[in-house]
């Protein structure tokens, strides 16, 4: 199976290096970063491209663009892992639309287009009889979408809730453990590379809200968008609030929850008993799916990271390879 990889940031490099190392019967025929690209229908030496990228900052020829690869490359699956834009979904949106319209499968880690245009994109994929898979958009390495779509197939899902942002979880863990203020814990998260220079996206709950929108659409195809999410972040929490929760053998976590029967689509800091399965430490994520037959299932794992997110992308790629690409 031939794939083209658009985006060579943390996720793209993780995917490319794992494909180079593991093989897995996948040939990379196109790679592009934001400034350059490389194409070879016979297969690219991925390790060499990554080395070049590390040395020069470019992966290939500046004349070759991500868009030209998406629209003209020879591939079976487009791996769209460019950075997320929550306002427009671009440039990923154009890449994904182009590939789907040409009857190519798409695997993406990009939350922007999936949260903004879920119904459009899934309809486009269906119209052209191809797969659009996006496991990496929600909770990194945790196979929550596979679990919902396949593992729990036939179940009625009543609710999904969980800890879906590792940055917030790290900050809250440190505030509770060490009595740090929010600012101190955030500064520490930045030093360790868990938080961006501008942490708004994470700490205001927007990242969690995007994941909720994607999960809600996956399960109920209800067309909800970011505007429908009632969103409160963790940036106004005090160290004293964590101590007060601790006095009751509880703690605080940022929880995203979707309960359609109650009309609930909310991100907010919540009090949970310390022994609760969703009280995971540091940058871990944890999600509970409540169903009619299986009851409640909780999955815990790493929500971010280059190789961890690559795990989700590669899982999607191999699913398509095994189930949807003739002759693999």
């Amino acid at each position, binding site marked *: 199976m031939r794939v083209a990889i658009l985006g060579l940031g943390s996720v793209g490099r993780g995917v490319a290096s794992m494909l180079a190392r593991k093989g897995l019967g996948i040939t990379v025929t196109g790679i592009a970063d934001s400034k350059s690209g490389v194409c070879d229908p016979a297969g690219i030496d991925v390790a060499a491209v990554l080395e070049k990228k590390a040395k020069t900052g470019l992966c290939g020829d500046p004349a070759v663009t991500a868009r030209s690869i998406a629209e003209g490359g020879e591939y079976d699956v487009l791996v769209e892992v460019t950075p997320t834009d929550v306002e427009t979904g671009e440039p990923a949106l154009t890449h994904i639309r182009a590939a789907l319209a040409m009857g190519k499968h798409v695997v993406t880690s990009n939350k922007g287009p999936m949260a903004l245009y879920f119904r459009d994109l899934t309809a486009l994929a269906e119209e052209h009889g191809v797969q659009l898979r996006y496991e990496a958009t929600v909770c990194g390495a945790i196979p929550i979408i596979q679990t919902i779509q396949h593992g729990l197939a036939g179940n009625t899902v*009543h*609710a999904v*809730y969980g800890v879906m942002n590792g940055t917030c979880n790290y900050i809250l863990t440190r505030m509770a453990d060490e009595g740090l203020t929010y600012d101190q814990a955030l500064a520490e998260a930045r030093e360790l590379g868990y938080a961006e220079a501008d942490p708004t996206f994470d700490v205001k709950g927007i990242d969690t809200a995007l994941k909720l929108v994607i999960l809600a659409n996956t399960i109920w195809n209800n067309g909800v968008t970011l505007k429908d999410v009632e969103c*409160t972040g963790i940036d*106004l*929490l*005090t160290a*004293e*609030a964590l*101590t*007060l*929760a601790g*006095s*009751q053998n*509880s703690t*605080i976590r940022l*929880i995203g*929850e979707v*309960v359609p*029967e*109650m009309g609930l689509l909310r991100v*907010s*800091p*919540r*009090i*949970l008993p310390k022994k*609760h399965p*969703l009280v995971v430490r540091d940058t871990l994520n944890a999600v*509970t799916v*409540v169903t009619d037959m299986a*009851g*409640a299932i909780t999955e815990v794992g790493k929500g971010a990271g280059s190789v961890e997110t690559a795990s989700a992308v590669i899982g999607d790629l191999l699913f398509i390879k095994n189930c949807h690409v003739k002759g693999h």
Partner: protein
Amino acid sequence: MKIEVKDAPGQLVAALRPISDAGGNIMAVIHEWDPTLRPKTRIVQVVLDLPEERLDGLITTLKAAGVTILRLGEERLLLKRSVIMIGHLMHTDLSDTVGQIDRTGYAEVVEMHMTMPGIAQRSSALLTISATNRTHMDEAVKILRTVAKKKDLLLVEPLEEVA
């Protein structure tokens, strides 16, 4: 409930039987001795668990049996939920915030722990609310949400799970 019964053999049993008949679970019976009481009467405090909708029927039956109910309802608030409020709690009239719950008649703030690190800084408080049942508790928290929004306070609620 606190009841007054005649100090005569068989009177207490006669007073408690209607509770059992109404499907109530008697958890404790406490006799109170008060020398100022009328002669030949006893005060008994009964802790019981009874579906709320059967309470009015029980009161009628007890009264018909000649039992005087001195106090009722203190122990009615069985459900508890703790929330945390963060913000300028004092400057935004904390007693009004608490009062809005207490005035409902079906829920009240029964405990509060508060920390105020500095005059200009936001304070944090753990409020424990008691309510008669789940619906009333949800109503009380809803009131608190509205108050928090109006007063620009952050309300941290417990995770109520769907299962």
